[in-house]
């Protein structure tokens, strides 16, 4: 858990982060969103003290971040930035080993951990471990960047627009991988993004910053149904908010008993995708398939449409 308490950053007269209070639950993904220059990166970097706050404090798992030297704190926190910042003169394996090495792990333990992470991120240790970053594709470099951040098993992972430089297809894959790995490891993730699509896709909770002030911190659906500020509505957009709302729930959430004639819809499918599938099939209802591929009930188009309404 990360507890941020009236955290501020001022540069002379300019207040870049303004008395932000924020509690980030353990094991969740929180997205910090806002327009460019709203203070997202500054807020994020105050968590690992790459930027020292002007006032306020941060606790991680109950412990003040100022209770130890900054380098020691940062070794316990994963950090991923846009453009990945891999060390160009070090091999992939050496890059991943950075923090374990700083922590003085045994070489055998480092080697085992490096191999494990490469495999976890879909890179073959035999092929990729000894390559230099420049010899990898952009998507692979980005994965190595995340692997490096996770190498020493941090409980907190901070990410500053980590997927910003990737093309759409690779970005979608990277987002999916992040979610999988985060669920698997139970890491608390804070991700800065200006891409609302990404925030809605990944985040359990979204924090909206504007001019250094926290406007709203809530689950994604409530940002749409109960925006705390006109700026929140402007940011989430109003033209496709019904569809966005539907994208936040899966068919499993509204399944009702009984079989109908219509297409099969996996239980993991979002309502938005289910709606699209129904429109495409020219059907008004479809059967929900559980994780084992068994029909567990059905959803109707009417039920989906109701979930997308502000008055639900």
């Amino acid at each position, binding site marked *: 858990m990360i507890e941020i308490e009236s955290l501020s950053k001022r540069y002379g007269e300019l207040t870049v982060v303004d008395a932000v209070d924020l509690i980030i639950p353990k094991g969740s993904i929180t997205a910090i969103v806002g327009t460019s220059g709203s203070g997202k990166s500054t807020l994020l970097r105050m968590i*690992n003290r*790459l930027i020292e706050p002007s006032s306020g404090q941060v606790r991680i798992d109950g412990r003040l971040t100022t209770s130890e030297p900054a*380098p*020691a*704190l*940062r*070794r*316990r926190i994963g*950090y991923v*930035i*846009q*453009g*990945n*910042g*891999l*060390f*160009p*003169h070090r091999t992939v394996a050496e890059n991943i080993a*950075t*923090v374990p090495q*700083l922590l003085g792990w045994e070489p055998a333990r480092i080697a085992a951990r490096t191999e494990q992470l490469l495999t976890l991120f879909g890179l073959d240790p035999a092929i990729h471990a*000894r390559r230099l970053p420049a010899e990898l594709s952009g998507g692979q470099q980005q994965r190595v*960047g995340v692997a*490096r951040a996770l190498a020493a098993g941090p409980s907190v992972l*901070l990410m500053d627009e980590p997927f910003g430089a990737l093309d759409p297809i690779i970005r979608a894959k990277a987002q999916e991988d992040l979610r999988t790995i985060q669920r698997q490891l139970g890491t608390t993730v804070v991700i800065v993004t200006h891409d609302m699509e990404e925030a809605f896709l990944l985040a359990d909770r979204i924090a909206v910053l504007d001019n250094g002030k926290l406007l709203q911190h809530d689950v994604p659906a409530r940002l749409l149904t109960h925006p705390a500020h006109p700026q929140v509505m402007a940011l989430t957009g109003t033209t496709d908010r019904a569809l966005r709302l539907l994208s936040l729930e899966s068919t499993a959430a509204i399944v009702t008993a009984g079989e109908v004639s219509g297409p099969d819809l996996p239980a993991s499918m979002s309502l938005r995708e289910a709606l699209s599938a129904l429109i495409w099939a020219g059907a008004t209802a479809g059967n929900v398939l559980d994780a084992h591929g068994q029909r567990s009930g059905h959803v109707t188009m009417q039920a989906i449409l109701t979930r997308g309404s502000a008055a639900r």
Partner: protein
Amino acid sequence: MKASGVIRVGVWGLLIAFLLKPQVFAPAFAPLTQHDAPAIYDQGDLATLAWAHLGLVLTATSLSALLAIGLAILVSRGPGRAFLPMSRSLVGIGQTFPPVAVLAIAVPLVGFGIKPTLIALVAYGLLPIFENSLTGLSQVPASVLEAADGAGMSPIQRLWSVELPLARPLMIEGLRQTLVISVGTATLGSTVASQGLGEVIIAGLLSDNSAFVLQGGLITGLMAILLHDAVGLIAQRWQRPVQ
């Protein structure tokens, strides 16, 4: 062996042979002498002089490198940045001030011999190493530095394991330039009684013996070329460590 390797071995062989058995080459230099003057420098042992010359150059370049790299590190970070323009000018003066003038000023202060020569060479050699080191250090991408800080490296760890390795190719380039400049400049040391190859050239000028002048020049030139080449070789090995 590649052609470059053959040439390299050839040039080394030529230099060593000339230093150890200079009399063998006497017929080649004889046409340059007049009135039966000796064709090969006879007021001292060429190998000893070359060795002393090399020692002087290596010492001076090492001192230049220590000062220039140290200064570049200091003024490229934190509060040291304020001193960047001043250090640039100082180092620049070191190069624009003629070494002969430095010698003239240094001798009354530290006496004749190797000391004034070292001072002149060190001052003259700072600039290439300093400027190249600065460029090398400033070329490290901001994202790489941020990642190093974010991973929990201390400033010293970041400098040692990220910044210096990435700046190294340019630093070595500066070192190379300084080495070559110093080999030539060090001949001036002989005017203030510092042992070196300048003696051969000066003896030739004083006794109007072009053979001496040419010998001194040739040995110095070969030394510069070989040092330039050797640094390149060492740097190459260093950049690609065997895994």
